[in-house]
Structure formats: C-alpha cells, structure tokens
C-alpha cells in the first residue's frame, strides 16, 4: 500500500483541497472571514486547469447558493461556503433546494452573532442549521466536523449523502476548525463524473431532454395545495428514512463516567481536554459527540444518559443543542449547559468548573 501523505493545513484549506480530489464539479462562493481560505485556496490551486472544476466568486451569497441550485439541478457536484451572516442570506436558496430536492453542499464556518457579529468562532447557528433555516417543513443533513481531518473527510461524505437522498447537506464548522492548522490526510484523487455517468445516476437532472422521457423540471413551486401536501409527505418520509439510517456520533471515555459531556465540533475538542483535567481531579467524565446534528442522535443520547449523575452540554453559544439533549434525556438525568458567547472560546478549566458545579 502506498504511504499516505500527511500534510499540515487549515480546515478551510482542507475543505477546498478535498473537494478538488473528490471530483467536485463546481464551487460558487463569496469571501467572508473566517471562511475566505476556501475560495482563496481554490484560486491558488486553479482546479479548472487540472480537473475542470469550475470556481466562481459570485457577486453575493444569494447568487452563490442559486448557482449551486443551477449546477446541482443539472446533476453536478456543486458546493458553496460562507460564514454565519452569509449563510443567513443563503437560506432562501437552501429552502428552494430542499423543496426541489436538489443535492448541494453548503459549508458554514460559524462566527459570533447575531447580525454581522464578530469574526471569532461560535456555534450559534445550531438552531438555524438543524431546524431547516429557511421557510417550510424541511431539514438539511448537518455534519459537524471536530478536526481538520474531518473537514476533509466530510466533503465526500456530504456529496454522497446529498445525492443519495437528493437533499442539501450542510457542514457546520466554525472559526476554530476552519482557521486552525492540523495534520491531515487528503482523500485520493477521483475523476469528476462524466455526462453519461450523471445521466445514469441522476435521471432527474436537467441536462437536456431525451426522446424517451418527459422534461425534467427543478422547482419548489406547486399551485395546487393537494399536490403540495403529497410532495410534503414524500419529503417527510425521506426525512424519516434519513433519521433511521444516517445518525452518526462518537463517544470517548464514557464507560465508567459519572458525568457525560455532550458537545459537537470544536467544543468537543475543548471538552476532551476538560475531561482529562476533570479525571485528574477525581471527577469521572466522558464525552458524547454528535457528528450528525440533524438527524440528531436522540436515542443514543437517551441510552448514554441512563445511570449517570448528570449530563453537561458544552456549546459555544447561549444554549441551543441543550434543548435537543433535554428532549432526548426526557428528565431521566439532570442536564446542564455551559457556553461562552460572541466569539469567545471557552477555556477547558471553565468547563471543569461547570462540571464541579453540577457535582455540588
């Protein structure tokens, strides 16, 4: 087996480089700190000269997401990336994609809010990401990377899920993971899909009508509410299947733990350090890390909560995922929350203090 090439890069750079290697057809984006390295890396690497991948700096975030709508509607693997205020602008397009069942990928490298907020890391877009974000009854699949390696790995996974279910997928990262440099092994090069492959795999795609079928139309509009209800029921059935089969999570030192910290993304990395420190002071703590935030690992958290003294939800926000954890635990175990706001990243010893407070 060939030796894997380990490189050192930022999470944002890993997203860009992994996309080129995964045979992605197009990137459409608009710069915003702390995410700009995605488009900067693509501009530097010039994939249009090698794989033929299209890279466009659009005139706005609204244009970016609608370019993804167009490209993905033709069966292409297309994605965009932005940070919190830019993702807020994209919500209309994401809702339209969910309604029209278009498989695209959106990367959110979160920063502090609300509004323009700060450019420092935050996890305060959890509600927006996991509740759909735009109008209508819909969900996007949300993956939360906790390392630069996962930033790279989740690109291909996102596209696979997006095309498997014909649904938008969001990679919910933040300024910590996007900006920090870590070791990463990039995926091997894979060619972009040919027109024939897309025709075979995506019979729904708008890539020129053939004589043997009716025209494909990508739209989220339907004037008859009876027809729209049937379409909504179809979407809900799809979401049920996703909930059943696509839940992903990770546990760490949970077996003997009295307290379980539930945290995603960069907060899970902080929690790991805090758990080491807590164990040194005699507090047995473990970590449950949801990897898919939607579908949420509800049953798995309910199971892991059994027999514990407490659950502490650590987030870099004012308390968002804690609501899903409380619903999952359903009163069987006390659930607390610790978070910092506005772009401040919690210190591990603050998390240990929060654990101590739960103990008393």
């Amino acid at each position: 087996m060939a030796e894997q090439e380990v490189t050192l890069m930022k999470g944002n750079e890993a997203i860009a480089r992994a996309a080129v290697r995964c045979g992605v057809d197009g990137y459409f984006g608009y710069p915003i700190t702390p995410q700009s390295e995605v488009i900067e890396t693509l501009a530097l690497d010039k994939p249009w000269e090698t794989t033929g991948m299209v890279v466009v700096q659009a005139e706005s975030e609204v244009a970016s997401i609608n370019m993804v709508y167009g490209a993905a509607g033709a069966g292409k693997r297309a994605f965009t990336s932005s940070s919190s205020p830019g993702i807020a602008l994209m919500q209309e397009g994401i809702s339209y994609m969910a309604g029209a069942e278009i498989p695209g990928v959106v990367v959110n490298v979160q920063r502090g809010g609300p509004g323009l907020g700060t450019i420092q890391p935050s996890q305060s877009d959890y509600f927006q990401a996991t509740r759909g974000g735009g109008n209508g009854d819909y969900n996007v699949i949300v993956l939360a990377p906790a390392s630069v390696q996962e930033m790279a790995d989740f690109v291909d996974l996102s596209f696979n899920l997006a095309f498997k279910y014909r649904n938008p997928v969001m990679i919910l990262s933040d300024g910590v993971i996007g900006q920090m440099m870590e070791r990463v092994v990039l995926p091997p090069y894979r060619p972009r899909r040919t027109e024939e492959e897309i025709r075979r795999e995506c019979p729904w795609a708008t890539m020129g009508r053939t004589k043997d079928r009716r025209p494909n139309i990508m739209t989220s509009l339907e004037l008859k509410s009876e027809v729209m209800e049937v379409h909504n029921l179809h979407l809900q059935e799809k979401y049920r299947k996703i909930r059943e089969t696509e839940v992903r999570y990770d546990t760490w030192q949970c077996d003997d733990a009295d307290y379980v910290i539930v945290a995603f993304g960069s907060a899970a990395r902080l929690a790991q350090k805090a758990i080491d420190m807590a164990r040194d002071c005699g507090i047995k703590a473990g970590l449950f890390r949801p990897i898919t935030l939607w579908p949420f690992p509800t049953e798995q958290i309910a199971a892991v909560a059994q027999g514990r003294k407490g659950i502490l939800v650590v987030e870099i926000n004012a308390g968002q995922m804690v609501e899903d954890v409380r619903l999952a635990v359903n009163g069987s175990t006390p659930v607390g929350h610790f978070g910092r706001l506005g772009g401040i990243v919690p210190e591990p010893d603050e998390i240990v203090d929060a654990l101590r407070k739960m103990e008393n």
Partner: protein
Amino acid sequence: MGRMKGAIVVDTARCKGCALCVQACPKAVIAMGKRVNVSGYPYVEVICADECIGCASCGIVCPDGCITVYRKRIDD
C-alpha cells in the same frame, strides 16, 4: 556558552490574533497590536525586539505557523 540573540518575523496576513504567542513568550517581546489584517483579525506585533532570546516558544505554539524565529549566538 555565549548568549542567544533572537529575532522574529510575524506573517501578519495569516495571524488570527489568538495571542497564544503572547502568553508563551518569557520576555514579553510580543503583544497584541491595535491594527487588523486583511481578514479583519488583530495581529501580534513585536514591541521590544531587543529582549528576544530566540527561544522559539512563540513559533512552537503558533497554531498557524505564522512566526519565523531567527537566532544567533553572541560571544561574551
């Protein structure tokens, strides 16, 4: 053994102002500046270059590899 004299160069365009180097420096050579770079991040600046001993603590802790450390031995 001679003394070490050091000098550091900060890649201010890549610095995100995490200030880990400020904490790591044993001689308080580095401090957070008031200006921001093209990304909007405040970046660190060298405030007393003469104090630098070239220990490279700042370069080791920098998560973004922004600091290059030069050092040379000064004979007593």
